[in-house]
C-alpha cells in the first residue's frame, strides 16, 4: 500500500510554491486502501476494494482563507490556484498564524500492524459472522465486513509535518424474522477487538425477541436510551450546540450557558483525543490535541474551537478541528467523545428501553425538540426485558432531558467517535397506536 509520507516531495513542492503566493499555506494529504464484503442474505454478493487519494490545500493571505481539494496529484497546481482564488473572495478575519511544530509526549493506538487489507481476512470475518448468526430463528438479510488501512499527513509553511496511520475493521449484520428486524455493528481499530459473535447474537436477539411485539398505549414513562439510540441525539443536537462557531453565530441553545448549571449535576462530557477510534495527536489545523471538558457537574465548561473560529472570537483553539468542510477545509468536531452520568441500575425500575430511533435526524437541531419513532423498544423491569413494543413515538427536548436524568448504566459502548452508556431519562411522552 502507498503511504501519505511517500508524497513528501510533492508536499514540499506545493508548500514552496504556495509560500510565495500566500502568507501561509497548509497541505493535507490522505491515502487509504480498503476491502469490503457485502452479504446478500447468507452469501457474499459483492466484494469491493477502494483505493483513495485526496489532497487539500489551504492558503491564508491577509486573513483571507482559501481552500480547495483534488483527487489527482497532477492537478495540484489547479488546486493551489483554486485555493488562492477562493481566499480572494472570502471575507478576511483576524488571523494569528498556522501552528508551529511541537513534540508529542504521548502516542496513540489506532494502527494495527497485523491487520492486512485483503479479501481472505475479510472472508474469515464474514464466515464467523454468519456462523454466529445461527444462534436464533432470524434470517440474515444483509450486512458485511470491511477492513481499511490509511495514512494522512499535514504540513504547513511554519514547519509542521505530522503523519498519522490508522487501521479499521468493521462488521454489521441485518437480520429479519417475519417483519421483525434486528441490526447490530462493530467498528474497531484493531482486528483482535472485533466481536462478530456479539454483533450476530445481538442482531438475532433483536429480530427474534420483537416477533409478535404489541402496541403501547399513549403514556408518560421513563425511557432508557441504549448507546445506539442516544448517539443519534447527542451527535445531531448536543454536539452542534457546543461548537464555537454555532455559539458565536447565534444558533446554539447553549450559547449563554457557559458556567451555568443546566444539566443534571452528574453529567460529564469531554473529548479525550488520545483514547478511541478517532484518536489523534494533532487536529485538522495541525494544532496539538488535548482533553477538552465540555460539561462537568452538569455545567457547560467550554465550547469547541478550531483555529479560525478561535482567532475570530478571541478564544484559544481547543484542538477540535476535523476534516469535513467544503474544499477539504477543517471544521469543528470531536475526536473521542465521552459522556457519563451517575451510575445506576437503569433497568431496575419499570421503563421503556429503546435500542434505536427512526428519524432522529429530523430533530430541531437548534431547540433540541424531537419526535421520533421507537425502534426495537421494550418494557424493562428488574433488569429484565419485558413486553416488546411494536411501535410508538417518543417526543422530548434533549436539553430538558439532560437536566432530568435518572442515571447511566455501568457499561460504556464506543460508537464511532463517541463512547456512551445507556442513559435513563425521567417521564417522557410516548404516543401509542
Amino acid at each position, binding site marked *: 500500500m502507498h503511504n501519505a509520507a511517500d508524497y513528501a516531495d510533492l508536499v514540499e513542492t506545493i508548500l514552496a510554491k504556495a509560500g510565495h503566493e500566500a502568507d501561509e499555506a497548509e497541505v493535507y494529504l490522505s491515502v487509504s486502501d480498503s*476491502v469490503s464484503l457485502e452479504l446478500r*442474505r447468507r452469501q*457474499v*454478493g*459483492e*466484494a*469491493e476494494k*477502494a*483505493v483513495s*487519494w485526496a489532497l487539500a490545500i489551504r492558503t491564508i493571505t491577509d486573513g483571507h*482563507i*482559501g*481552500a*480547495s481539494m*483534488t*483527487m*489527482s*496529484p*497532477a*492537478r495540484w497546481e*489547479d*488546486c493551489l490556484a*483554486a*485555493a488562492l*482564488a*477562493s481566499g480572494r473572495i*472570502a471575507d478576511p*478575519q483576524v488571523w494569528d498564524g498556522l501552528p508551529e511544530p511541537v513534540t508529542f509526549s504521548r502516542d496513540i493506538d489506532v494502527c494495527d500492524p497485523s491487520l492486512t487489507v485483503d479479501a*481472505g481476512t475479510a472472508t474469515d470475518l464474514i464466515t464467523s459472522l454468519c456462523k454466529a448468526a445461527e444462534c436464533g430463528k432470524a434470517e440474515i*438479510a444483509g450486512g458485511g465486513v470491511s477492513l481499511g488501512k490509511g495514512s494522512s499527513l499535514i504540513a504547513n509553511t511554519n514547519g509542521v509535518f505530522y503523519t498519522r496511520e490508522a487501521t479499521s475493521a468493521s462488521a454489521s449484520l*441485518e437480520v*429479519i424474522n417475519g*417483519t421483525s*428486524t434486528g441490526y447490530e455493528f462493530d467498528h474497531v481499530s484493531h482486528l483482535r477487538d472485533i466481536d462478530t459473535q456479539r454483533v450476530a447474537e445481538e442482531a438475532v436477539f433483536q429480530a427474534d425477541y420483537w416477533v409478535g411485539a404489541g402496541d403501547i398505549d*399513549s403514556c408518560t414513562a421513563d425511557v432508557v436510551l441504549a448507546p445506539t439510540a442516544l448517539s443519534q441525539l447527542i451527535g445531531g443536537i448536543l454536539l452542534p450546540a457546543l461548537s464555537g462557531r454555532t455559539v458565536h*453565530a*447565534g*444558533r446554539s441553545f447553549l450559547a449563554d450557558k457557559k458556567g451555568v448549571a443546566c444539566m443534571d449535576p452528574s453529567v460529564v462530557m469531554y473529548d479525550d483525543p488520545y483514547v478511541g477510534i478517532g484518536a489523534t495527536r494533532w487536529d485538522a489545523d495541525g494544532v496539538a490535541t488535548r482533553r477538552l471538558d465540555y460539561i462537568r457537574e452538569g455545567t457547560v465548561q467550554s465550547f469547541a474551537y478550531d483555529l479560525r473560529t478561535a482567532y475570530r472570537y478571541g478564544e484559544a483553539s481547543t484542538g477540535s478541528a476535523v476534516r469535513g*468542510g*467544503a*474544499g477539504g477545509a477543517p471544521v469543528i468536531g470531536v475526536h473521542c467523545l465521552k459522556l457519563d452520568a451517575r451510575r445506576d441500575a437503569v433497568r431496575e425500575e419499570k421503563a421503556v428501553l429503546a435500542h434505536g430511533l*427512526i*428519524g432522529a435526524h*429530523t*430533530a*430541531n*437541531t*437548534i431547540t433540541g*425538540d*424531537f*419526535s*421520533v*419513532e421507537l*425502534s426495537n423498544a421494550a418494557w424493562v423491569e428488574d433488569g429484565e426485558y419485558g413486553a416488546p413494543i411494536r411501535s410508538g*413515538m417518543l*417526543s*422530548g427536548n434533549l436539553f430538558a432531558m439532560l437536566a432530568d436524568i435518572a442515571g447511566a448504566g455501568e457499561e460504556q459502548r464506543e460508537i464511532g467517535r463517541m463512547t456512551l452508556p445507556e442513559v435513563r431519562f425521567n417521564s417522557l*411522552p410516548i*404516543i401509542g*397506536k
Partner: protein
Amino acid sequence: MATEESRYYDVRHLVGTSTHIDIENGTIEAAGQSFGDTAIVRALGATGWGMVIIDNFSDAGESGLSRAVADALALSHATGERVELADVKTGVLPVPAIKEDPRDISLEEKTELLASIESAARLPGIVNTRARYIESEGTVRFMDSSGNEYQYESLRSGYSILAVAGKNGEMQQARESEHAITGLNLRHKEEKGREAAERALLLLDAAPARGGTMNALLDPELAGVFAHEAIGHASEGDLVKEGVSVIKDMIGRQIANSVVTVVDDPTLPEFGFMPVDAEGVAVKRTEIIRDGVLKNFLHSRETLAAVGDGEAGHARAEGSSSPIVRMSNTFIENGDATMDELLEGCKTGILLKGSRGGQVDPGRGVFQFNAEYGYLIEDGEQRGMVRDVSLSGDILSTMHNIALCGTDLKLTPGYCGKGGQSVPVTDGSPHLLLRNAVVGGRHA
C-alpha cells in the same frame, strides 16, 4: 481486455468540479472549487460482483483499466452468490437544456447573488442567517463489456437559506432551498430569504404540537416525503430481494386506497433526472402503485433478474460508489379533491407543512417523517400554528388511510440517503388527507 472468466464488466468514470459558497451573518466564510476524478470498475465472475474504486482514474490509462478489471475479477472470487443480470434496453436520453449555465458565471457573481438572498433574511428578530450554494458539474463516462458506451454532462446547482429567530431566550429556525438541473437559480430569489425569516419569526409564537391519533392534511412537500419514505423505499428491488420489505410478496394486491397512484420517473427534467442509469440501462417511468394496486418494484439489472415484477433502470450511485437501487423523481399522482373538500374531509385534525426529512424501516414497515410546521384544523377551518410535529405509521395500514388526493401536484428537490450514499431526488404529491394518522408531539 477482460479475462476469460469475466461474464461481464463495466466502468463508470466521473471527472468534475464542485463549487461551494457559504455565507453566514453577512460574512463570506468560504467560496471555492474542488476537483474530482474517480471511477468504479465492476466485474462479474463465476459468482458475484468484484468491484474496484480508484481515485485519480484519468492517470490510470489503458493498462490501469485492464489491471482494475483483473483486480475486480479476482475480488469476485470472494463472493458466493451467483448473480445474474436481466436483459435490458440500453440507451441514453439527451440532458435537458440549461437556461443559464452557472459555469459561465463567475464565482464572484454567484457569491453576490447568494449574499442578496442571505441579506434578505436578516429581518428584525432574526439572530442568525446562513446561505449556502453548491454546484457540481462534470462528465460521466460509462462503458461495458457488452459494447455499450455512453458519455454525458452532469450539472446540478442549488442554494439553501436558513434563518434563526430569537426572542426571550427562545429560538426557532426555518429553511428554504431550491436545487435544479436546468441551470443557475440564484437570481431574484430574495423573497426566499424573507420567507425563511418570516416563518422562523412566526414559529417563535407557535405552540408545540399535541400528539395523538388524528386526521392529518399533508401539504405537497410533506406528502412527497411520505410517498418516498412510506412506499418508495419498500419498492426498491434490493430490499425486496433481501426480504426486508413488507411489500415483498404483494405484487397485484391492493395495498393502498384506490385514489393512490405512485410513480418513479427518472426521465422527468427534475432534480432526480438521470439520462441513463448507473449501469447503462435506459431509464423509464415506472408505476409503483396504480389505483391502489402494487404494480412494479424498482430494479437494477441484478434485482430484476432475481425478483422480477418491475423495471430496471433505477440503479444509481453517489460518485464512484457501488450502484444500488434508488428512487429518482417519485410522486403521488393528482386526485380530484379540492382544497375545500380536503379541509372539510379533515374536519378536526392537523395540517402539516414543509419537511425536515424522514426515515423508514422497510422490513418492519414503519416510517417516520417530520413537518417543519403545521396548523390545527377545527371544523374544517385552519387555526393556530404548531411546531415540531412529526408523523409516523405502519406502511400497510397508512396507505389504506389516504382518503383524498388533491389536484395540486408539486415536486420538491432534495437528497436521499441509503447505504451511506446520498443522491439527488425529487419527491412530490398533491395535498393528501390521511385518516387516523399518528402524530407525535411534546404532550401526549
